[in-house]
């Protein structure tokens, strides 16, 4: 019998380590022949901590939202066949949502122990590199990737075979294979999850890529904010070396390849290839003009190929199942599957992997369970600070590179932040501009100053000080920043503003001309009043008001002095009779 506790960063944050310790204590105390193991994130973050119990027939029962004090009971259920309470195990509905997905990049995350290479080997791990090294030439490898139709999963969607081929064509040596694990898009965490749950899968992808382009050195550039991912990668690299999958003369084929990890130091712009290379070289991460492309002149001016984590996670699968099997999934131009981080105002947040081409509605409502508290769906933000907000009327848009780009958003790395009627779209645009303004490296004036000016205008609007002409000024700035920026950070920074202006212009206008925030989020634009009919004159509001803006007595209905009111909303929260209105 095996008990497996999901321990990705998200599971640990939800208390999985404490659950694991409690189970361990229980097992030692009762001296049971049960093995306790760990695994990565299975994607159902809303059910964390998740514990899988495998009986002697390897039948799995999944327990959800486990707390440490449930440990004893769980062992009872596992050993004595006691029937679990319905709420303790995964529901049929959640199983169904899982079944709608197709796991390729996430195939092992949440099922194998990421800290044990034997677990990876047991699921045919390193079989793909064996096949590649013993039966295929580099050009055949590239051809197979071309057949698969795999495109970069980091954001731009550039065909992977093309990049590999460009690096392969270079005569100069040495060449470098780099894995971009600088997942900076706030709201996306699939790369972290894959690294934590299946590090050997990425190492195998790197090996295949390295062989294809002719590199013997590979580098993982990992975000410093992901300490667990770094730790598990270190363990995996060490184990792969011990087993002879890394180092000299791999599998006796004469192919040499080794890997090392470079921890990033916190700069969003380092997700950009040339900035990443500058950072690898120990410099400030500032992009430079392309061409020359990294495939020509990259790390230390040598041919360098850079792929995103999720892209590489697909590679071993492609070589085990064939490029055609991968291409059979998805749409005409967007093949295979894509992982999305479904978050925000969603019932079932977590990681989902779906074949390309499913509609946004299917992802958000069928798999994600719909909107939190059954509020109205307003928009979904895709592509992070480089992307845009897709409104309700476009919910039937298929999820593929081309269709998403047509809406004004981008596929990006796969963040899907769902927003409901209480999210103000102007404030959302302000949030993203605040981010890009901070993360702009400062090289291009349009990006450095343009984002600052745009943020000032957006802040002015959300503060209720918007002026006539602000919208037009924003639009003009958007164009200029797009044109005048060297890299994609500046080139796409206006997207959140442009898409909200395109689909939610009325919200901007309400802020500026009516001094109202339709979503009741921008505090400066709110007016709190006490309803004469509903007020029972209890005075709780007045006692809780931090600025003594409320007056009244047990004989007189309470009123708010608008000049003194700081719009903190305390009165509305404390009123037992719901007599405080906000508009």
């Amino acid at each position, binding site marked *: 019998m095996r008990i497996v506790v999901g321990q990705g*960063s*998200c599971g*640990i*944050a*939800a208390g999985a380590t404490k659950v694991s310790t409690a189970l361990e204590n229980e097992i030692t105390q009762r001296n049971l022949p049960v093995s306790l193991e760990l695994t990565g994130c299975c994607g159902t*973050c*809303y059910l*964390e901590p998740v514990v899988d119990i495998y009986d002697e027939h390897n039948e799995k029962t999944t327990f959800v939202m486990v707390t440490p004090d449930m440990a004893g009971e769980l062992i009872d259920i596992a050993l004595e066949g006691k029937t679990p309470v319905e709420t303790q195990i995964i529901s049929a509905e959640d199983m169904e949502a899982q079944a709608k997905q197709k796991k390729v990049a996430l195939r092992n995350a949440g099922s194998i122990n990421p800290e044990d290479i034997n677990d990876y080997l047991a699921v045919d791990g390193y079989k793909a590199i064996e096949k590649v090294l013993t039966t295929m030439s580099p050009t055949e490898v590239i051809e197979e990737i071309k057949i698969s139709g795999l495109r970069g999963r980091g954001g731009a969607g550039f065909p992977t075979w093309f990049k590999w081929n460009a690096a392969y064509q270079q005569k100069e040596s040495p060449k470098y294979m780099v894995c971009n694990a600088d*997942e*900076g*898009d*706030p*709201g*996306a*965490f699939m790369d*972290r999850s894959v690294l934590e749950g299946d590090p050997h899968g990425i190492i195998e992808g790197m090996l295949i890529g390295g062989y294809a382009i002719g590199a013997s050195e590979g580098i993982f550039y990992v975000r*410093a*904010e*992901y*300490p667990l991912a770094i730790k598990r990668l270190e363990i995996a690299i060490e184990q792969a070396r011990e087993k002879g999958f890394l180092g000299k003369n791999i599998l006796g084929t004469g192919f040499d390849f080794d890997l090392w990890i*470079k*921890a*990033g*130091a*916190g*700069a*969003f712009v380092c997700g950009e290839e040339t900035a990443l290379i500058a*950072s*690898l*070289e*120990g*410099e*400030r*991460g500032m992009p430079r003009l392309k061409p020359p492309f990294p495939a020509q002149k990259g790390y*230390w001016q040598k041919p360098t190929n850079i792929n995103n984590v999720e892209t590489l996670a697909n590679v071993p699968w492609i070589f085990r199942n064939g490029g055609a099997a991968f291409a059979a999934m998805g749409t005409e131009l967007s093949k295979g599957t894509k992982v999305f*981080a*479904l*978050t*925000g*105002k969603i019932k079932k*947040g*977590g990681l989902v992997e779906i074949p390309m081409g499913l509609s946004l509605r299917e992802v958000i409502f069928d798999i994600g369970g719909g909107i939190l508290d059954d509020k109205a769906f307003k928009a979904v*933000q895709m592509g*992070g600070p480089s992307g845009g907000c897709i409104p309700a009327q476009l919910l039937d848009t298929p999820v593929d590179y081309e269709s998403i780009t047509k809406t004004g958003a981008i596929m990006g790395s796969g*963040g899907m*932040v769902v*927003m409901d009627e209480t*999210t103000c779209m102007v404030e*959302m645009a302000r*949030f*993203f501009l605040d*981010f890009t*303004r*901070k*993360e*702009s*490296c*400062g090289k291009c004036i349009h990006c*450095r100053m343009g984002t600052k000016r745009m943020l000032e205008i957006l802040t002015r609007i959300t503060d209720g000080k918007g002026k006539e002409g602000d919208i037009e000024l924003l639009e003009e700035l958007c164009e200029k920043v797009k044109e005048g920026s060297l890299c994609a950070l500046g080139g796409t920074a206006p997207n959140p503003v442009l898409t909200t202006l395109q689909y939610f212009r009325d919200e901007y206008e309400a802020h500026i001309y009516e001094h109202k925030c339709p979503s009741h989020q921008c505090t400066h634009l709110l007016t709190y009043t006490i309803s004469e009919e509903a007020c029972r004159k209890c005075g709780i509001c007045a006692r809780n008001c931090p600025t003594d803006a409320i007056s009244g007595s047990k004989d007189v209905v309470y009123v708010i002095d608008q000049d003194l009111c700081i719009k903190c909303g305390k009165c509305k929260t404390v009123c037992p009779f719901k007599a405080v209105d906000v508009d």
Partner: protein
Amino acid sequence: MQCCKGQGPQAPDPTVSGVDLSLLIPVLEKYKSKPGSLITILQKAQDLYGYLPIDVLDYVASETGIKPPNVYGVATFYTQFRLKPIGKYLIMLCMGTACHVNGASAIEDAICDELKIVDGETTEDNLFTLNNVACLGCCSLSPVMMINGETHAKLTPDKARKILREIRKQDQLETGKEATS
């Protein structure tokens, strides 16, 4: 990128810290001849000292042969590097999109009110430092904050206050014990 005209939280602390620079010798021995290692050296230095005082930056520059402006440039470019000491407990408050949508700013207000500091500052008793960070990657559990490596999920303003109070209480108990023993 923000220009603070030398006054903001990112500006190098002009006071010389007087830390023991010899602690850095093994790190420099290992990395100084390896090109492209400046970020790694600074990361190791920050692990040793908790922050990067100006004398450490100067020392790294003189030992590696990298010009001081380039060392400062790198140290101020990346958000991971701190040029001022931090408190015993570092609060990293996630400001990612999911956390933002689920009310991170209300959590920030509560923390700032509870500790009487703003983003980037340290409490007078040197117990807490608040740092707003871009994304911790725990989006499904938003809003979240990480305190000394431990993640606290699904926060509400009250829950955040309670966590801070408990840490303070626990810390007082521990330091009290140390003082008496």
